[in-house]
């Protein structure tokens, strides 16, 4: 079990919030500053794409408060080489050295390629990046990533955008127990109770995009996730009370009214 780490230190930064948020899928990017505020989050993800000269749209960067730590992702990369290329382009924007590695070739489940992710992690770590790899919660891949120099491990709870919750809970438990890096559960968390469940299990943080951005009220849902993550963290730090097969009375089993009466 890891020692307590509050506030959360990762990638050379000290964070006051254990909720990382995304910028995808909002009906309007103008909501992003309010979601940053309601969540109290310090970290926000973005993607890098070609400029479409025929459809110049709003610049998402205009809506991200300057105090937020940017975490660009390498979405779109199909192998380590492409992930490295995207990461270096992202850093050239001047956004810092954090990078979330995503290497995906499976379009049905959007499951990440652990081998290519580890290769990219090693190259980028040696190039001065703080690398946050997105993976299936696989112990051997996670060990490879530790050796490759990752600063945290980001296992999926369920496939991206599915909102199905912590389907990989047992495997994530193994990473929490055996991997001496922060575990940030990413993808698939569909409601605040899912995030609370991950934090109660000992995850260090959660990244939530779809469940906040596509809710009816992203600002309020963002707050709900933040509260749930704090509750889960507090529960983990407090230490769970033991469970029992049989009932155990909470009130004294003596001094009943009926005792001694005829």
């Amino acid at each position, binding site marked *: 079990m890891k020692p307590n780490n509050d506030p959360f230190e990762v990638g050379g930064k000290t964070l006051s919030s254990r909720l990382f948020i995304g910028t995808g899928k909002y009906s309007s990017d103008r909501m992003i500053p309010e979601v940053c505020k309601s969540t109290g989050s310090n970290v926000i993800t*973005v993607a890098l794409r070609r*400029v*479409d000269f025929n459809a110049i749209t709003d610049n998402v960067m205009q809506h991200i408060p300057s105090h937020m730590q940017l975490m660009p992702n390498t979405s779109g990369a199909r192998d380590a080489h492409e992930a490295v290329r995207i990461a270096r*382009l992202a850093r050239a924007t001047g956004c810092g050295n954090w990078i979330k590695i995503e290497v995906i070739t499976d379009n049905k489940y959007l499951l990440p390629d652990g081998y290519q992710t580890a290769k990219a992690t090693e190259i980028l770590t040696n190039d001065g990046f703080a690398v946050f790899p997105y993976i299936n919660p696989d112990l051997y891949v996670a060990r490879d990533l530790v050796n490759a120099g990752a600063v945290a491990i980001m296992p999926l709870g369920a496939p991206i955008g599915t909102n199905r919750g912590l389907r990989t809970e047992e495997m994530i438990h193994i990473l929490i127990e055996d991997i001496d890096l922060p575990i940030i559960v990413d993808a698939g968390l569909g409601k605040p109770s899912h995030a609370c469940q991950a934090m109660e299990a000992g995850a260090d943080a959660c990244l939530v*995009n779809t469940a906040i951005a596509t809710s009816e009220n992203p600002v309020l849902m963002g707050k709900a996730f933040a509260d749930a993550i704090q509750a889960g963290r507090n529960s983990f730090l407090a230490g769970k009370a033991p469970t029992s097969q049989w009932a155990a009375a909470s009130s004294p089993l003596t001094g009943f009214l009926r005792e001694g009466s005829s």
Partner: protein
Amino acid sequence: MIVAINGEKVSFMDPITIASFLDSKSIQPDSVVVEHNKIIVPSEDYQTTWLNHQDNLEILRFVGGG
């Protein structure tokens, strides 16, 4: 002169720099990152980097993502 820009072949009659091309598309230079023939171009070099026939230019920027 034909240059591949973001995967599309674009014809130019006259020599052009990266800065001039961005300006022609009303793109703020500080809102994008540019790769010229697979080499990242520092923004301070946009004004002095000329495009040549059969060059490959990638112009990218951050968008919403998770």
